[in-house]
């Protein structure tokens, strides 16, 4: 049984059919890519899976459990972590606090612990800190631990966002254009980071990208989405060279101006 | 101060800022006029310079407590005049009583201000007295059988008085004779809804124990709704500004109060004339009552027959002297304190005549 199984999911905004009859099955350890023109509905699919929107129709099953109707924090706590197309970081919080925050659902000291600084709270907080530091190191941002995120270079911010998602200890990671705005160098190191995380935790990854190179390097399976529908899916090479995909999405790459 | 030995300090706990700065201004005016007239007091054959300390309570309970404490412990006053409104006078009275310092609130009509507080006195009659005065007047002089009441629920004084009026009126005419008992909240400006109810109820008289600033709006709302019957007010109407705000619309109506400015005689007239000359307006109740309360305080100081210089002992002496005062001839009437520290005094009912003056109509004294 696949880890994440989406069947016949549709959603519309007012009159606009943003996603229609979308299907996905993602096995543990698999990396699937989602490409498609702007406005095709890729981000919307992420939002539907994680519970930000509720699909008009269809079901999303994760580890055998139905996700539709669950709130984003619940889906996340179950092991579905994500990053955002336009990074969503907390302006006034330090890097370490960002990472620790993702342990929220794993803390069990409760409100009384929060108010009264119980030994249990101290223990759990200490553990969360240690764990967070490990992740910060893994994503090479540990030297920024005490700083506010806004003061970090762009690439580092992206890695913080990724580390934050990883601390949830997810089974599936949803990445929405993780290399947007990066130089080729930064892009390459991002690919490495994703690959490492994948290998280390046998993570299933669902990835939105416009950079075909990234898709190519990472994905075993790719879906091409157009107008909310999957147009073609298969191995990266197949999809990339599919005439329909070229027509709708890739275009002639070498144009002369 | 240097030579504190031969000065007497009186503190004033009054609202110089906040919602009602004109109350503070009137109190201060009266006090300053008093000081001009009586810069020194003779006590036990020794002459003392009078010194007044005015402190602002911002029309807030919290500040009134701080100010009282400050006046007593920092300024070392012998006695305190004020606060004026019960919402400040009740908590400030607690402080004064705890520090064993005599306090007279000129204008607070809430029974709790003086209750069980030997050091706290007041300069005016109480609501339980004024209410029946108004009810009897409505019955006897206006021939009313059904009455309507419109009052501010959120302010201590109108609310209390409205209730006392209702009780008194219903005692005379039976339960239900107050056919409309309508209220609003401090700061309200529109009374049309309440007036519509009152019109429907078919009352013979409208009693509205409101401040002079609200009276014009109430009167106008009444007239706009077609009200043609008498309106009766209370001591809070008696401000020099009432007619300036209300104009012709208020003429012919009545209110009960502490003194009648028009047609006053003797001391009262002297006070009114002097005040008018000095500040350009007729003194309102606060001014007159502050004057009297101050007078009472000074009288009590004189009655001690001599001050020891130890302010704590002197305060106790002043309190005893205050309690013992008999028939003090105030400009708002003769005063004798009951055991609670409340004066027995007469109320007058005035009518606003065609010249816009508050003309004496009737005087009612406690039995």
């Amino acid at each position, binding site marked *: 049984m696949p880890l994440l199984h989406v069947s016949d999911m549709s959603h519309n905004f007012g009159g606009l059919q943003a996603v229609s009859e979308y299907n996905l099955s993602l096995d543990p350890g698999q990396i699937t890519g989602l490409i498609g023109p702007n406005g095709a509905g890729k981000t919307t699919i992420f939002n539907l899976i994680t519970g930000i929107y509720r699909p008009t129709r269809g079901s999303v099953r994760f580890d055998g459990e139905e996700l539709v109707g669950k709130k984003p924090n619940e889906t996340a706590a179950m092991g579905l972590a994500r990053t955002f197309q336009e990074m969503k970081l907390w*302006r*006034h919080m330090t890097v370490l606090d960002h990472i620790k925050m993702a342990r929220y659902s794993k803390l069990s000291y409760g409100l009384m612990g929060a108010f009264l600084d119980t030994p249990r709270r101290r223990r759990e907080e200490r553990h969360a800190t240690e764990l967070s530091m490990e992740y910060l190191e893994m994503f090479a941002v540990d030297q920024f631990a005490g700083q506010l995120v806004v003061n970090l270079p762009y690439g580092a911010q992206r890695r913080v966002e990724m580390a934050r998602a990883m601390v949830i200890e997810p089974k599936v990671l949803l990445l929405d254009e993780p290399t947007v705005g990066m130089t080729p160098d930064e892009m390459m190191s991002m690919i490495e980071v994703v690959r490492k995380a994948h290998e280390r935790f046998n993570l299933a990854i669902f990835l939105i990208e416009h950079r075909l190179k990234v898709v190519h390097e990472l994905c075993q399976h790719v879906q091409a989405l157009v107008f909310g529908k999957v147009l073609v899916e298969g191995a990266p090479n197949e999809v990339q060279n599919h005439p329909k995909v070229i027509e709708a999405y890739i275009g002639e790459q070498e144009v002369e101006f | 101060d240097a030579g504190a030995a031969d000065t007497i300090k009186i503190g004033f706990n009054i609202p110089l*800022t906040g*919602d*009602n*700065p*004109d109350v*503070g*201004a009137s109190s201060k005016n009266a006090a300053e006029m008093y000081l001009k007239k009586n810069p020194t007091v003779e006590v036990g054959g020794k002459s003392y310079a009078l010194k007044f300390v005015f402190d602002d309570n911002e029309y807030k309970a919290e500040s009134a407590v701080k100010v009282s404490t400050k006046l007593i412990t920092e300024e070392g006053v012998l006695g305190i005049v004020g606060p004026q409104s019960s919402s400040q006078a009740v908590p400030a009275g607690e402080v004064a009583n705890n520090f064993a310092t005599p306090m007279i609130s000129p204008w607070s009509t809430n029974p709790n201000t003086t209750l069980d507080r030997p050091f706290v006195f007041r300069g005016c009659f109480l609501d339980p007295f004024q209410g029946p005065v108004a009810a009897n007047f409505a019955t006897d002089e206006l021939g009313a059988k059904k009455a309507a009441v419109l009052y501010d*629920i959120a302010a201590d004084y109108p609310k209390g008085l409205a209730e006392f009026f209702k009780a008194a009126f219903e005692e005379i005419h039976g339960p239900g004779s107050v056919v409309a*008992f*309508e*209220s*609003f*909240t401090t*700061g309200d*400006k*529109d009374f*049309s*809804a*309440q007036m*519509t*109810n009152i019109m*429907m109820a078919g009352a013979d008289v409208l009693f509205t124990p409101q401040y002079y*600033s*609200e009276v*014009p*709006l109430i009167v*106008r709302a009444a*007239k*706009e*709704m*077609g009200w043609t019957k008498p309106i009766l007010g209370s001591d809070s109407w008696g401000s020099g*500004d009432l007619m*300036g*705000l209300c*104009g012709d619309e208020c003429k012919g109506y009545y209110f009960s109060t502490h003194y009648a400015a028009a047609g006053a005689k003797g001391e009262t007239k002297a006070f009114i004339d002097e005040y008018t000359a000095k500040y350009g307006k007729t003194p309102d109740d606060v001014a007159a009552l502050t004057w009297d309360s101050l007078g009472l305080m000074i009288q009590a100081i004189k009655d001690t027959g001599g001050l020891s210089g130890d302010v704590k002992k002197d305060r106790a002496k002043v309190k005893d002297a205050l309690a013992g005062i008999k028939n003090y001839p105030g400009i708002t009437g003769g005063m004798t304190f009951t055991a609670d520290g409340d004066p027995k005094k007469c109320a007058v009912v005035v009518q606003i005549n065609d010249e816009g003056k508050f003309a004496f109509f009737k005087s009612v004294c406690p039995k």
Partner: protein
Amino acid sequence: MTFNFFMQNLVNALQWGSFYALIALGYSMVYSILMLFNFAHGDIFMVGAYIGLGVSLGLLSLFGTGAAAVLPGWLILVLTLLVSMFLTAFVGIIVERVGYRPLREAPRASAAITGLMIGIILETANILFLGGSRLKFPQLIESVTYNIGGVYVTNKKIMIVLVSIGLMLALHQLINRTKWGMAMRAMAYDYVVVPLVGVPMNTIAAMTFAIGSALAAAAGILFGLAYPVLDPYMGVSFGWKAFVAAILGGRGSIMGACVAGFMLGFIEIMTVPAIMIVNRLFSLSIGSNLRDLIAYSIVLVILIFRPHGLFGQAYSSKLRL
């Protein structure tokens, strides 16, 4: 409980609602465009009323009163309205310049605090200059009461309601049909980039305040006609209640503010007869004093069912920190 009784209250509520609506409108202008709680707005209303008082007294002394009058009362009223709206607009512009422009990058709540403080300064300045006592607003036009089938209506009430509605419609047009209005709405969303499309941001901000303040002045003068006692704190409770109405209406919606203003007026006025009716029907004796309690409970309930206000769109508007 007659039809008359209901109609009478309806007429009263219309007038009362007009004030809330007019003030809420000015509030909403600044709120929806600059995304600021302009806690000084109630006090600008007060300033407008006092300016109106000064202007009308000036005009009356110039053109005479009573039999010696050169100009009719209604003309003086119109002049007073125009001149005072103009002058109060300047007060608004100064408030914007001093209290809000320096804080454009600051958290919105900080600007709300400056607004609150400017309000206090305006009140205090009034007391300093005019003393604490109340002033009477001159009655520029003769009051005439019409008895229409047992319902009492005055000419002033009619005029107040009409003028308010007229001003509201004009404003609605301005916001939704002109490029100035468009610029204002754009500014609400992202003021930083407004200059990048060639729109003079400071001018728009100043104009927003100017229009809002002019409306407050109009409200102040009409208020003076209806309730002729002015005091330095008259704007405080109006300010807070207009704040409720402006947000209840829904952010970005001028019409919403207007409707919510009327609605608040209606609720406040109508609870009094409603309580009376309930009392009669069930022979209870609930006091009409529960008005605030009931009125604001209704507001609460409305917000439970329409969490984004009456006309508001559902987008997040966190305080900018």
